[in-house]
Each structure stands twice: as structure tokens, then as C-alpha cells.
């Protein structure tokens, strides 16, 4: 078989399948009734019997359409009502309506069988490479097992050398797992669509590299700019992706949030990039509570939850929906800033607990239900937690803050902070200059020109 034939084979195969040759190929500009016909023909298997007669009115068809189409799928919805329902369901239709119609009426040649010669050659090269990688992977795993089975005194270098070799071999195994799949266009497509299974190393790798691109740099810059690192923790480097949503709207790190919006706790999306389920603690703290007596700023805990399970595939963490009995320690207190005070940094921390470690809620409640004077560092050190994720928003006094404070019985809405007047320590000086010297009646003729005296307000 020549190369040309070999390449054209997949399309020939797909042509041979007795699929319905749709007569309604150009449905883009047709009326609603025509479109209805198209959807019914594509979804039902025996098409000829179910096609409504061409004389049927649009109203007729829309009445019977829901019955004939039980499944609402975002890939095939072409009707207004279908799209609206899908939007309401939270699974918006994919692409444009035009595209969806075109997808249904075209030959659905699978992507990997597209009859382009260079593409097919490229796929062959990549598949050969993948086969090699998989072989290398299996042999490497066998090597690891063999090394694990040998006792340490028979390995040259002893226990330490054996452990080091095992570590590096396992690292190489992980790398090979990623390398086997990194060149697959299907994997890339799935990841771009957000359908990747985060339990697989390749998708985790892709997600992490995407996060390291811009969001990680942004969050590290916010940590630096807003002085989180010396103020809250002595050192910190985020390793998991934390996204924050107020009322389903994603907020950028460091955004100033209206106090009415931040009255309800945000929901978080915590994407971890290493496998396995782990328990985390979530802390929301305000590190800028002004204290007029000591003329300084204090910290306050706005939210604390512990023992929250997080895994690569279950990343959603709505703060309002944590278990009240087993997870919640300190309930949400809305962010508020009194009038005149500088912005409050509300930082959200994800602290990973040790594997198998569950925190004692009663003890936590006893320690932290006071909220004021919360120290993240002491919390972290006391329970041997490691901070992994971070996000931040800020709050300032705005027109809704007084209402929010009243609703939550928070005192201090009538207080306004002002800077204390600082008087100059320099002694007073006599007015100097040409004008100051000519203020006496002797120079009455010059008074017109001696109004501007240095250091005095204009008369």
C-alpha cells in the first residue's frame, strides 16, 4: 500500500461507515424550524422515520423537541432554549452555535485519524518515542524493585547510598511518566479544556507549569509588595495554587474587596500538584488591626478550619460549607476596616498537616476563639504545619462597612482614625527677606509690593 493510500485510509474508513448523509448541511442561516430538524436527525438513530414533515410549524417542533431530545449536552445544543437551560445548569455550551451545528453535520473523523500526511508521520514518530519511554519506565520500575529487595549491606555504599539511589531512581520514574505523555495532542487538548484527570502525573505537571507561569509570579510579587513575608511569617514560598471566589467571581490577589461582598466567606479552589489526599488547615487573618492605645497594629483571626481533606482531583473548598462539627474552629467574621485606617491585608493561608495528623478541635477552639492577637507563626509551630498556599485580599472603609458592622454587632463603626498632628521641633524664626523688612510705615509706599513674605500664608 502506498503512503498516499495509507494516509487516506482513515478518512476512507469513516466514509464507508453508513452514517446518515445529512441533507441539511447548510443550517447556519436557516430558520428555527430547519434547525430543529437537524437536531432531531442527529440525535435519533433511525432518522428517516422521526424527521418531522417539512410542513410542520416551528411551534409544533418546539413543543415536541424536549421529548425527542432527553439529553442536554453542551456539545450538541443548537437551540436557544437548550442553550439557556445549559447556562442555567452551569454547563455552558461549547463553542459557537455555528460550530456546534457544523460539528454535527460534518463527518466526525477523529482527530488522531485526520488524513494529513505530515501529521500522521509526526504521530508515528511520537508514538514510537512513547513506546520507548514506556519500556524505559517499566525497566526502571523493575530496577527500583530489585534495589528495594536487596538488603542494604549488600549494596555498595551501604544504607545511605541505597536510599540516595532509590530517591533518584524514583525521581527519574516520575519524569519518565511525564515524558511518555507530554507530546500527546489529545492530552494537550484535554488539559486545555479542563477535562484532565489530576490523578495522572501528566495533567498535574501541565497544571503546575501553567500555574508557575503567571499566577505564581503574581502571588509571590504580592507577598513581597504587601510585606506578608516579614509581617506574618518569616519566610514562605507557595507551592499550591489557591484561587479565591467571592460570589462566584474570581478575585485577583491583593484586590480591594467591597465590605458588603466580603461579608460572606469566599470559596476557594485549592489545586495541589502532588498526588494523594491530605488534610489542610485554612486560616484567614487580618494583619492590620489598628490599636490606638499602643499606637500600633495587631492581628486578628477571621476564620480557622482544620482537617479539611484536599486532593488533586477535589480542589473545591467553599469556606462556608466546611463541616461545623469536625472542621470549623473559628467561624467567619467579615472583613472590615474602620474609617481613616489604612487598608487591611486579609491573607488566606492553606497549611498542610503532616500525613495522618488530625488536629484536636477542642484545643484549637480553646486557643483561638478569642480571635485577637492571632499569630500564624505560633499556630504553625505549635501544630507542626507547613504553609503551602496563599491568597490575599484587602479591605478599606467604604459606604457599606457601617451596615456590615452593625449587622455583625461589631463596635467601632463611629470611630474615625486620624493622624496625630506632629509639630515641628525647630524653633520659631523671625520673618526674613526683602518684603519682611519693608513692613514698617516707613515703607508705606512699597506696601503694594511687600505682600509675599516667605513662610507666611498669603494675605
Amino acid at each position, binding site marked *: 500500500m502506498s503512503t498516499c493510500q495509507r494516509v487516506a485510509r482513515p478518512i476512507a474508513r469513516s466514509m464507508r461507515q453508513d452514517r446518515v448523509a445529512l441533507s441539511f448541511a447548510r443550517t447556519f442561516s436557516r430558520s428555527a424550524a430547519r434547525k430543529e430538524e437537524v437536531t432531531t436527525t442527529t440525535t435519533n438513530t433511525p432518522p428517516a422515520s422521526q424527521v418531522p414533515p417539512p410542513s410542520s410549524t416551528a411551534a409544533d417542533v418546539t413543543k415536541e423537541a424536549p421529548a425527542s431530545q432527553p439529553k442536554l449536552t453542551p456539545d450538541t445544543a443548537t437551540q436557544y432554549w437548550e442553550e439557556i437551560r445549559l447556562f442555567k445548569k452551569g454547563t455552558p455550551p461549547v463553542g459557537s452555535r455555528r460550530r456546534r451545528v457544523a460539528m454535527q453535520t460534518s463527518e466526525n473523523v477523529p*482527530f488522531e485519524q*485526520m488524513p*494529513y500526511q*505530515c*501529521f500522521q*508521520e*509526526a*504521530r508515528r*514518530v*511520537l508514538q514510537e*518515542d512513547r513506546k520507548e519511554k514506556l519500556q524505559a519506565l517499566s525497566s526502571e520500575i523493575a530496577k527500583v524493585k530489585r534495589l528495594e529487595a536487596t538488603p542494604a549491606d549488600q549494596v555498595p555504599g551501604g544504607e545511605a547510598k541505597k536510599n540516595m539511589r532509590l530517591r533518584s531512581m524514583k525521581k527519574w520514574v516520575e519524569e519518565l511518566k511525564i515524558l511518555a505523555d507530554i*507530546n500527546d*495532542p489529545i492530552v*494537550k*487538548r484535554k488539559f486545555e479544556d479542563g477535562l484532565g484527570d489530576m490523578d495522572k502525573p501528566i495533567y498535574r505537571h501541565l497544571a503546575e507549569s501553567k500555574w508557575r507561569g503567571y499566577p505564581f509570579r503574581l502571588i509571590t510579587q504580592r507577598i513581597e509588595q504587601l510585606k506578608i513575608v516579614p509581617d506574618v511569617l518569616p519566610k514562605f514560598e507557595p507551592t499550591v495554587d489557591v484561587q479565591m471566589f467571592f460570589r462566584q467571581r474570581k478575585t485577583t490577589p491583593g484586590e480591594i474587596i467591597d465590605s458588603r461582598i466580603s461579608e460572606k466567606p469566599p470559596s476557594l479552589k485549592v489545586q495541589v500538584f502532588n498526588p494523594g489526599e491530605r488534610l489542610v488547615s485554612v486560616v484567614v487573618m487580618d494583619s492590620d488591626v489598628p490599636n490606638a492605645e499602643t499606637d500600633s497594629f495587631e492581628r486578628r483571626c477571621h476564620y480557622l478550619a482544620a482537617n479539611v481533606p484536599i486532593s488533586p482531583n477535589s480542589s473545591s473548598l467553599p469556606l462556608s460549607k466546611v463541616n461545623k462539627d469536625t472542621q470549623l474552629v473559628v467561624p467567619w467574621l467579615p472583613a472590615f476596616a474602620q474609617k481613616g485606617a489604612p487598608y487591611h491585608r486579609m491573607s488566606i493561608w492553606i497549611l498542610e498537616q503532616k500525613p495522618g495528623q488530625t488536629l484536636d478541635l477542642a484545643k484549637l477552639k480553646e486557643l483561638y476563639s478569642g480571635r485577637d492577637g492571632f499569630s500564624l507563626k505560633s499556630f504553625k509551630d505549635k501544630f507542626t504545619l507547613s504553609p503551602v498556599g496563599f491568597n490575599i485580599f484587602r479591605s478599606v472603609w467604604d459606604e457599606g462597612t457601617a451596615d456590615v458592622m452593625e449587622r455583625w454587632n461589631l463596635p467601632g463603626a463611629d470611630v474615625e482614625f486620624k493622624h496625630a498632628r506632629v509639630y515641628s521641633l525647630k524653633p520659631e524664626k523671625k520673618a526674613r527677606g526683602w518684603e519682611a523688612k519693608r513692613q514698617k510705615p516707613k515703607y508705606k509706599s512699597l506696601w503694594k509690593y511687600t505682600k509675599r513674605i516667605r513662610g507666611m500664608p498669603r494675605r
Partner: protein
Amino acid sequence: MSTSSLRSLFSGLSLSTTTPLSSTACQRISSTLVRSPTAAAIALTPLQRRSFSFTSPAPAKADKSSKKKRKKGKGDEPDPRIQNLKVSNPRKVPAPLRFARNRALRHWTIHRAWLLFQRKEREREEKELARLYQSMHSACEELRQTSGPGTQDEGYLYRVAMEKKGVFKHHNFPIEYARPQVETPAREPWNHGWTR
């Protein structure tokens, strides 16, 4: 700006024309010139170009072309300065590829396969070179350890093999290659007494 001076200008411009432009055409052009200098510049350029390329332009033809130009106005051709800039500064970054999803994915696939192929070729070449170097090294080692022909002691063959006699002759390597090419100048920058 008078008509006579314009006429002299045009007679200078049309180098290869046998007959001067008809007076009507000149007058028309002069009227455009009086109205707006920019339009005049545009009206001038086609005439100029034509006069160089055409061997015997009929006056009626020139008349027609100028008429067309005037009708079209000044917006139909970009500024010659911009054109000149574009020609002299080609953009450094090529225009981005604008592909639909599947096409982009196919492109990506081919690109990845090409990168993979290149990497494999490179590794293969490196491996081959390393193998050659290693075999040469082991051959030299073997020479160093054998005691030479006849009564020669151990290492004689190696010493002979390492001799560079005749390597830098005429038509062989240039003598400059006997020294490593370095980034900083030597302490003695130029040996004036050197002869081949």
C-alpha cells in the same frame, strides 16, 4: 508657480518622451497643483514612473492616467515613506500563526515530533563522536603500553604517534591552529620576528 515653469519641469521629467505633453494635460495638472500641493505630488509620481518605463507614451494615455489618479484621490496608496520604512526594516518577529483549534493542535504535534527528531539526531551524533574519541583513546593507550618494534622500549610507538611533524606544513593545518583560539590577547600581542 507659473504654467511655463511647470511645463519646463515636466519636459525635464519625461526623459524618454519624444513629444512633449499636450498643453491641455499640463494645464489640467497645473490646476490641480494650484488647488492642493499634496494632490499634485500624487499626480506627479505616476507620470514620473511611466516616463521611465515606457518608450513612447502617447499623450492621450498619460492624460487618462492622470485623470484616473485624480479621481481616486490620495487614500489609495500608502505613504511612500511608510513603504520605504517597511522595505528597509522588515519585522524581526514573524507574524503569529493564526490557526483554529484542530489545525493548531496538528501544527503543535508536528512541531513536537520535529523537535524530538532533532534531539534524537543530536544525541546520536554526540554518541558517535564520543565512541570515536573513546576508541582513539584506547588505541593510544594500547600503543603506550606495548614495547615497540625490535629493541625499542615501552611507549616508543606512542611517542612516535604523537609527533606533530609535518602537520603544519603548507596545504595542511595553518600554524595558527597549533595554539588555542582565546578571547583575551596574548601578553605579547604580535610576534614581529615570526616567519613561516
